[in-house]
């Protein structure tokens, strides 16, 4: 193992990371590292490859070149273990089951942080009283909140959040910010994508900018 015993390696490190789909580069060689306690915003226009980057970092897609190190260890699907929690566009939960059942399953699969229960997590995201509600009866924003509750439960050090602010009302946006802050404070780290940088209000986060590969034509004129 490369891990230097004297100096703690960064939680996540990307070296010359690039991804190409069918030989067409989606995002260029990227170098960055993420220390514990950091929250980093991935910025980029529509189609610049933010979603793709998160999928690569979570191990769902394999990078075309470059490498990803987690705690100084090469990332492979097998070793991903319980280090990464991905919140994508899909909820990863069953619409037919209740919020509590869904969270219990997530805990069974991913383990649980000490000192928290699914019910507490639900209350933390403002869904107390919705414990026995099947997920399909919730609105778009309420579903997103349940997905956020999952993050609170599972013991993952690195959060990868794809547009966590979408569909949330202002209270929900504040909730995400508070969750991120708490997570950073207990030595977690998070990578988030968002168009609305305005949404992240607790201080200015560090940013990673993705250039759109096929530079978008400016929408200069609206035809009437």
């Amino acid at each position, binding site marked *: 193992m490369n891990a230097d015993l004297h100096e703690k390696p960064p939680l996540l490190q990307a070296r010359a990371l690039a991804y190409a789909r069918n030989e067409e580069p989606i995002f260029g060689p990227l170098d960055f590292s993420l220390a514990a306690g950091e929250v980093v915003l991935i910025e980029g226009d529509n189609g610049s490859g933010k979603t793709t980057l998160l999928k690569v970092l*979570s*191990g*769902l*897609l*394999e990078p075309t070149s470059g490498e990803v190190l987690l705690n100084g260890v090469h990332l492979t*699907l097998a070793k*991903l*273990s*319980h280090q*990464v929690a*991905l919140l*994508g*566009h*899909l*909820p*990863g*939960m*069953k*619409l*037919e*089951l209740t919020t509590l*059942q869904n969270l*219990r*399953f*997530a*805990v*069974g*699969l*991913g*383990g*649980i*942080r*000490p000192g928290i229960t699914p019910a507490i997590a639900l209350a933390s995201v403002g869904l107390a009283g919705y414990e026995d509600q099947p997920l399909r009866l919730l609105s778009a924003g309420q579903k997103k909140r349940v997905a956020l509750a999952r993050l609170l439960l599972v*013991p993952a050090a690195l959060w990868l959040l794809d547009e966590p602010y979408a569909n949330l009302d202002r209270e929900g946006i504040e909730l995400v910010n508070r969750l991120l802050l708490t997570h950073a404070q207990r030595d977690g780290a998070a990578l988030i994508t968002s168009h609305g940088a305005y949404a992240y209000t607790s201080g200015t986060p560090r940013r990673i900018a993705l250039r759109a590969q096929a530079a978008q034509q400016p929408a200069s004129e609206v035809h009437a």
Partner: protein
Amino acid sequence: MKPGTTSAACTALLRRDLALTWRRRGDALNPLLFAVIVVALFPFALGPDAQVLERIAAGTIFVAVLLAALLSLDSLFRSDLDDGSLEQLVLSPHPLSLLLACKIAIHWLTTALPLIVIAPLLAMLLHLPDRVLPVLLVALALATPLLSLIGAICVALTVALRRSGMLLTLLVLPLIVPVLIFGAGACNAAQAGLPYGAPLLWLGAWLVLALVLAPLATAAALKISLT
């Protein structure tokens, strides 16, 4: 940080899938009804002549049960893929093949087992001689888990495609032709008064093999089709 044990993960998965089956219990009955209906179609198509029906009874029941179990295979990972649960499963720290074995077991329990239970009724509809019935049941009990296991591999391969229903059938059917030949063959032999032990033993041997290998193959196929 408490990572959670693998057995806890399997238990959680089993519990969740059973809860889901219960919530969708209407859907769970569908393969059953499908098999009944396919069997019922044959008298309509062939006419009510009891002798003809008796001759084709075992084979038709086998085909109907295989088709029903097969069409229900499509849903094995479908909904998990659609809502992103499958990604979470793949990203979990536990051996994927074990988790998938749990899913396959649930699938067999909820679709194939009811089919075996109802097989005597189907046999009656087609006038299968009573003495052939036990052979039919044993053959089905060996053939359906084989089908679930082999099918799971193919489902894993096709799961990333949007509408895989029929493609899946195409992949699975050639693989289960031997199962059909031996299973229905045993019944036909019994009906003709010939010895029928050998094909059943073969089926049993394959089943043991598939129990060990199929979950591993399914996990590998799933990883291929998700990346």
